[in-house]
């Protein structure tokens, strides 16, 4: 599994990481709750036939600027800016969890900016008679099994890489969970 190339774009004065890998028609991917602390095999599969572009949402790993976004409209405008600057205007978009919700909303508000969308477990639909599990109110040990059919895969995703800063890594993971919470609840 080779590493993607990394660039950075500016959204509201804050840097956001953009990963790119593969060749062929462009497809953008917006990650879900917690973001992507590292490249994952799923994106490699996509990159076999497509140019995969993975911009980090504000506050997700590799990006900051979540704490100036107060309303959901603030977020949508920021995501639209991020996608455009990442070269994804008019491309196919896929997303999971909160990223899945965003691709749907971007397509609804700016239909010309998206060719096709694919959503994986989009977050944000809410039935008060059957509320979704609150992922922000969990014991840390319970989170992997709640979010992933293969808990070990989730643990690997979040495990601190060799040589990473042992203070900044957990702060970055917490920041991503905070950013995800900020998207849907004012």
């Amino acid at each position: 599994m080779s590493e993607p190339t990394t660039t950075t774009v500016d959204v509201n004065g804050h840097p956001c990481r953009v990963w790119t890998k593969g060749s062929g028609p462009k497809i953008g991917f917006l990650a879900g709750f917690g973001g992507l602390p590292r490249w994952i095999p799923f994106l490699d599969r996509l990159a076999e036939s497509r140019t995969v572009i993975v911009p980090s949402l504000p506050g997700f790993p590799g990006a900051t600027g979540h704490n100036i976004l107060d309303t959901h409209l603030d977020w949508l405008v920021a995501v639209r800016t991020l996608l455009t600057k990442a070269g994804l205007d008019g491309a196919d978009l896929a997303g999971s969890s909160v990223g899945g919700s965003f691709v749907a909303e971007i397509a609804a508000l700016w239909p010309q900016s998206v060719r096709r969308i694919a959503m994986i477990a989009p977050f944000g639909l809410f039935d008060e008679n059957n509320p979704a599990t609150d992922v922000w109110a969990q014991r840390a040990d319970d989170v992997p099994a709640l979010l992933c059919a293969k808990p070990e895969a989730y643990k690997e995703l979040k495990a601190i890489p060799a040589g990473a800063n042992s203070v900044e890594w957990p702060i970055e993971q917490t920041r991503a969970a905070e950013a995800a919470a900020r998207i849907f609840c004012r």
Partner: protein
Amino acid sequence: MKMLWFHLMPYTELPDDFKEKHPSVWVDIHSSLFDPKRAHHMYNDFLDELEYAAECGYDAICCNEHHSNGYGLMPSPNLIATALARRTTDTAICVMGNSLALYNPPTRVAEEFAMIDCISGGRLIAGFPVGTPMDTTYAYGQNPSMLRERYNEAHDLVMRAWQEKDTFAFNGRFNQQRYVNIWPRPIQEPHPPIWIPGAGSVETWRWAAERDYVFCYLSYYGYKMAQTVMKGFWAEMDRLGKDRNPYRAGFAQVVGVAESRQQAMDLYTEPAEYFYGRCLHVDPRFASPPGYTTEATQRVGLESQVKMAAEASKAGPSAQQPSAMKMQSLARDMKGIVDNGYVIVGSPDDVTDQLMELAKTLNVGQLMLLMQFGSMSKDVTKYNTRLFAEKVMPRLKPLFSEWENKWWPKPLRVAERAALPAFAGSSPAAAE
């Protein structure tokens, strides 16, 4: 030294198997455990106890705000404070306090605190907590990521509302009000003393010190465990060029006094075990929502953990600083509770000696005493309160007399105050 009598108002009849059968005392505690008819008696007992503390000569009586829980039955401390304002005359009333970010608009806090200050004749101490994660994020649905920003803005709005003489417009990030003009306005000028409850956050210490507010460390784990936090606080005051006036700081301590140590153990074991075992039984999943703790505070905590882990690996596991969860696990029974210094129990001499040590080592002038805790009955509470007032209080009072307490209410002179209650007795003259 000031001694404040602080009531948490716990639900006193949680079942014996509460901890085993219920995941949390907060947020999703089951409604079937709450009996309103029993709560009628609890509230009235608690108010009696607070009024009794005022009669016994404590400098202040205190209440606070919590939601959706069996730990403290005061969603509105302002209701309690108002009742106390009518039933006491000279004691300060410390509302510790109103969680500013939970009020919409926050001018409600400015108004209600001003009402309490007017009704009480200027006896209010105004506390501004951020609020626990359980109260703010989970019970009240506030986004932890915005909580502190909302708190800061609400604070600025309340302070302006108290002090500006003319109607003004407030156009904040979270609050927009075209006409801010509160009626009533507080008696105390320029405003009631402001106290900030908090824990080990350098940012909170700095924020409070810059505004000349009192910082109160509300820990339930006793003065021995509080040494590191309060040393850090005073070091930060030194760094900011503030004096070491002990009245800048408050500390909460659970206390049980009796004629002898054995008698104290007999009286206070059950309520202490109830308090630590049931009232503090909070599901960890409600303890730290992302965004509640600032990144700067997370960084300090993580850096100190890394450092302590390194030191502990040299010195052995016992050198590690206990975490809140560890501290809670040490409180399983009265022996652990007392041996770890969470609760101060004993004869008047024992208690006096320990509180002297507390005052001197923490350099704290505003001592908040938790003298009803857990399931403690009204009679035992009365006994504890009275014995402390008679045998301990006089010996602690002279402490720190060389310092001025600039953070204490300045009530109206007695001659300026209303007679309470005006129509008591057979004729108006009887009230005089």
